[in-house]
């Protein structure tokens, strides 16, 4: 393969820093980002079928927010805590990818 053409990079393991090459899979990996609990993301790619709430509504924990249809199943996405709907970022009938930000909440 063409390792000669690649640039050696620094990789820190424990507290030692080593000169090395990276694998393609290593380069592909996504950086971890902590979850924002005020944000509701799609758990699976699918279609937003119906909203039960609108911006500004006060909603109790466990009440349905929307239906996300995926794999022929209607998934009811529920309110994680007592709070308010700050912003709705997707509209009914739209197909979305996994991890799409759908709703922002206020505690």
């Amino acid at each position: 393969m063409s390792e000669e053409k690649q640039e050696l990079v620094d990789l820190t393991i424990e507290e030692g820093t080593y000169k090395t090459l990276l694998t393609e899979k290593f380069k592909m990996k996504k950086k971890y980002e902590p979850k924002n609990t005020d944000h509701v993301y799609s758990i699976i790619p699918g279609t937003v079928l119906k909203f039960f709430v609108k911006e500004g509504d006060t909603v109790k924990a466990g009440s349905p927010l929307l239906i996300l249809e995926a794999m022929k199943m209607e998934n009811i996405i529920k309110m994680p805590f007592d709070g308010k709907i700050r912003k709705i970022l997707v509209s009914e009938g739209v197909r979305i990818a996994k991890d799409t930000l759908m709703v922002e909440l206020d505690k």
Partner: protein
Amino acid sequence: MSLEKEISFLKEEKAILQKGGGEAAIEKQVAMGKMTARERIAALLDKESFCEYDLFVKHEVHDFGMDKKDLPCDGVVTGTGTINGKPVCIYAQDFTVMGGSLGLMHARKITKIMDHALKMQIPCIGINDSGGARIQEGVGALAGYGEIFYRNTMASGVIPQISVILGPCAGGAVYSPALTDFVFVVENISKMFITGPAVIETVLGEKISQEELGGARVHAEITGNAHFYSMNEKDCFDQIRTLLSYLPSNNTKKPDETKVMAPTFKGKLEDFIPADPKQPYDVRDIIKAITDGSEFFEIQELFARNIVIGFGRINGQSVGFVANQPLYLAGVLDCDSADKAARFIRFCDAFNIPIVTLEDMPGYLPGVDQEHAGVIRHGAKVFYAYSEATVTKITVILRKAYGGGYIAMNSRHLGADFVFAWPCAEIAVMGPDGAANIIFSKEIKDAEDLEAMRKEKIQEYKDKFANPYVAAARGFIDSVIEPSQTRAMLIHTLTISKDKTEVRPTKKHGLPPF
């Protein structure tokens, strides 16, 4: 009818059946850059060694107009022959016959040749080129797959099983290759996936091509499902013949010994290792410097490149090498490299091939992705595989052997027969930088010049602990050797270990962390 007439009838029948799906279908196959099933078998086996069976097998399905369909050989060619003069069982799916689809009789031809392989104790090779289950046969096709998988499992660890993916191999069909020991793929020809791009797009809205989803390169580099990757079918068959030359025909035998050859490498081994332990080198150069004819047959070359596995010969004896690769990801252990090494160690153990481990690793790859992907259970596979193996196990510590990695890489404590270290080896609970920061944290914190003190303490730790002599004093390593003595020590220890026996507690089977 005179016998003469009957013979000519037989000849005509055979000629028709051997045409498979006929001229038009063959033309299509060739246009895709593919050989036909019979051409593949002829190209892989020793010249004119193939003997075909079950040419006259017919399917028994009547539904959906199948009663009017003649499927020559039911879409699969099966038989026996030789490779490197040694017997093998083989089958090749014929894509020209109804897309090589698998029905019950097609599967029964395969299971029959697999049963032969297990009884005759010889390797079994399957060439996969099939659109999948023959839908018209319904549950009969599923039964066929299941019966193949069952035999793959029964033969596992008894005879070498090889899968060659020379066309599509999708859905349930992928599980036979996944259950076998080695999977070969060819660029642009091999396609493997459980769920194809069309379904993924309809259900999930993710658009991807067949090649990007499950092409040869993806399985060779990303998933690790494939062990050998080549650019064309001819090279693929060469790889299979080379692989078999390193293996015994079954688990009661040892690989054939070959004529002893000196390495062609003529330099100094120590020249490969940079003076600075943080600089990389290609560990394959070290392997080639010690093997017969400087030959090394690498397995999973593109997948988890931070560990190198493969076969070579030492003094004519087939040996499995496991080596950390500082050139990639500093040679760390992670989920993929642990999985890759552990499976290979178990293969060598099952087929009586001694294992030589070359160690130079700084530890485990840090990261949320690694922890969440289960680096604990994947990493544990390496400990399990080495501990469980009863073949001769020899370790040479080239440079770094820190912490858990020191234990994992066939240490004395996991049952290594011989452990050697080069004088530049650093066997320690962790790297000098980290260790000094912990042990001398107070001295460093209180110093006027923090950095100078840190450097001094790192050096102090290095002098005291980052060497092979502390471990040698406890007998954890058997000898500190000059790099130039490595091959001689391996020859000596492999020779005296030829009749090694080691008994394990009786059990139904162990529970490796998979």
